[in-house]
């Protein structure tokens, strides 16, 4: 049969092309997965390097310690992530944290009220500050860095007004449980952090409001045109950030058992750099809760590792600055190529 030759050549070609397609597909897929998880890989690589040079790193006690240190940072970063997703930035988180600690400290030490009221007051104060910032952004239409920078100063003023010049210390044990306690052998802050991460993840992924956050960040005008109430989304994003920042402050002061005026300030910059390192775009609309967790963990692991390796704390800031820049650059470069 004359045709017998033809199909075999055809099928050969077919199979070859199929293999090529498979290979291409695989490569594309592998690349895609690698892109998605390369930050996790980076974190694991970092852990591996530190473990090789100092075995103590991988001990359970140290890992739990890292998570506990990271929990306040992660909680604040979650709020920051929500704001970054709307395309804004919240410079006031550090100062709102201080307000949260100052208010709870005031209620615990200066009044006889029970501790849940102190907690509620702190969270309320944080949310209120966030709300004002949100209104300044959404209604007065100030650029977000400017509006929240103003809130930073207002927060500073509020906490100085509450505290005067004397720090609060010596809180009751029930309150300190929030920062120092253990539940099923795991520190309580880690539980709070885990619950909040889950809630925010579900909120951003499955609720209308959560999707609106992404839509607002991606294109505010398109979001408005398609019927999303952009004002409300923005205001709630900043309110969430304020709430979480105050909660972070409460946890921090419960662990330290004291409040002073500068308790929150060092948390601001890592709270921005963390999510961005983890893959949340500063332009808005891209990223998620996972990014804030990974980013915060990278930073805390780096600090912990440097301590274990005996690198002087004086040089640590240099390393962290370098790592932040390099990580974000890697992110930008890879995004550009794909």
């Amino acid at each position, binding site marked *: 049969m004359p045709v017998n030759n033809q199909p075999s050549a055809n099928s050969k070609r077919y199979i070859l092309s199929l293999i090529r397609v498979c290979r291409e597909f695989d490569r594309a897929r592998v690349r895609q997965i690698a892109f998605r998880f390369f930050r996790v890989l980076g974190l694991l690589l970092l852990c591996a390097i530190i473990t090789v040079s100092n075995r103590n790193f991988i001990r359970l006690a140290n890992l739990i310690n890292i998570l506990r240190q990271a929990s306040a940072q992660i909680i604040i970063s979650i709020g920051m992530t929500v704001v970054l997703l709307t395309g804004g930035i919240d410079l006031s988180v550090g100062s709102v944290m201080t307000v949260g600690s100052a208010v709870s400290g005031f209620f615990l030490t200066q009044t006889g009220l029970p501790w849940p009221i102190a907690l509620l007051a702190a969270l309320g104060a944080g949310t209120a500050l966030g709300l004002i910032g949100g209104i300044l952004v959404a209604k007065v239409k100030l650029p977000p860095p*400017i509006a929240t920078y103003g809130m930073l100063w207002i927060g500073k003023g509020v906490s100085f*007004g509450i505290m005067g010049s004397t720090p609060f210390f010596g809180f009751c044990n029930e309150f300190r449980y929030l920062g120092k306690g253990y539940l099923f052998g795991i520190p309580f802050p880690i539980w709070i952090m885990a619950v909040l991460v889950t809630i925010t993840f579900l909120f951003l992924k499955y609720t209308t409001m959560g999707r609106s956050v992404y839509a607002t960040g991606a294109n505010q005008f398109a979001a408005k045109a398609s019927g999303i109430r952009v004002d409300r989304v923005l205001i709630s994003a900043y309110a969430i950030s304020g709430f979480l920042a105050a909660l972070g402050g409460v946890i921090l002061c419960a662990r330290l058992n004291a409040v002073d005026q500068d308790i929150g300030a060092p948390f601001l910059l890592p709270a921005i750099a963390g999510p961005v390192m983890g893959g949340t775009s500063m332009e808005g609309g891209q990223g998620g809760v996972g990014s804030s967790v990974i980013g915060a963990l990278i930073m805390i692991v780096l600090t912990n590792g440097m301590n274990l390796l005996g690198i002087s704390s004086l*040089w640590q*800031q240099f390393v962290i600055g370098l790592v*932040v820049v390099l990580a974000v650059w890697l992110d*930008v470069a890879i995004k550009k190529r794909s």
Partner: protein
Amino acid sequence: MVNRSKFRAFFLRVPTVAWVLLLMIIVFTISSPHFFTLHNISNILSQGSILIILSMGVIVVKITGGIELSVGGVMTLAGMSMAAALMKFDWPIPLCLIVALLVGTFFGFLNGIFVAKMGIPSFIATLGCQGMAFGIATGMNDGRVFSGFPRQMGYFGGGSILSIPVPVCLSAIAFLSSFILLGYTRFGVYVYAIGGNEESLVLSGKAAWWHKVKAYMYSGFMAGLAGIVVTSRNMTSQPMVGFGMEFEAFAAVVLGGSFIAGRGSAIGAIIGALFIIVLRNGLNVTGVPTYLQLAIIGPALIGSIVLSILVERGLRNRSYAGK
């Protein structure tokens, strides 16, 4: 009608914060006899010179649309390296000054490359540089200060030319240089164009990135100058001296009318810086306690920013409607 539109144009050109500043000066003058004296004014200006010099650099970056958060760290590192050159290597003073300026410019260059070539958001890039600069500054002398400089070193912070303090002269020079650079040179045109619409600048065939790098280098240079002034005034160089200055410079620039990319001027920035300095000094002179001062500065800052944005928006809308 002509008069009215001229009036409006005048109002648009003068930043609103200038009027608030004027009001503030009047209030402080009435409430304290020590405020409006020659001694206090010269004191205000020489204390504020660092902030003025820094904001003269930051304004250029802010107009290109960047947020420059590294000046605090860079000015500290510039001061520390100048002190190290002086005390550890015994270099002559002019050479040490050049070292400080070079360190500042180099970090500005790094910032510029990070932002313009590598595409890192300016916020993160400058933040990273700030961390690196503070890290080196604390690490280079194991966290200790340098002190015991020769007496001539104090000239740039405490000396005077024709009975005008040297820091004031330096900040005037910084102001003039930014003013001329932004208003009367090709570089200034590029800076405003980058802020206005970078993409169209690139599409029209201009190499925008190098001008961006130059803007950051200029800001770094100014940070180096501020480092010289602060080190010479304190006669020690502390590894944390510039902490928080980057935010103050940012606030000064924003107060002066640079709300968005492509807007702002050297005059606005100097008025913004003066606003912050005068507010601080006035509260001190009138005897307001420190914790209340902080409670006042915050609302005053945000209040005047909101006010100037609203006024500007109102004037714009009305002038468009008038046409």
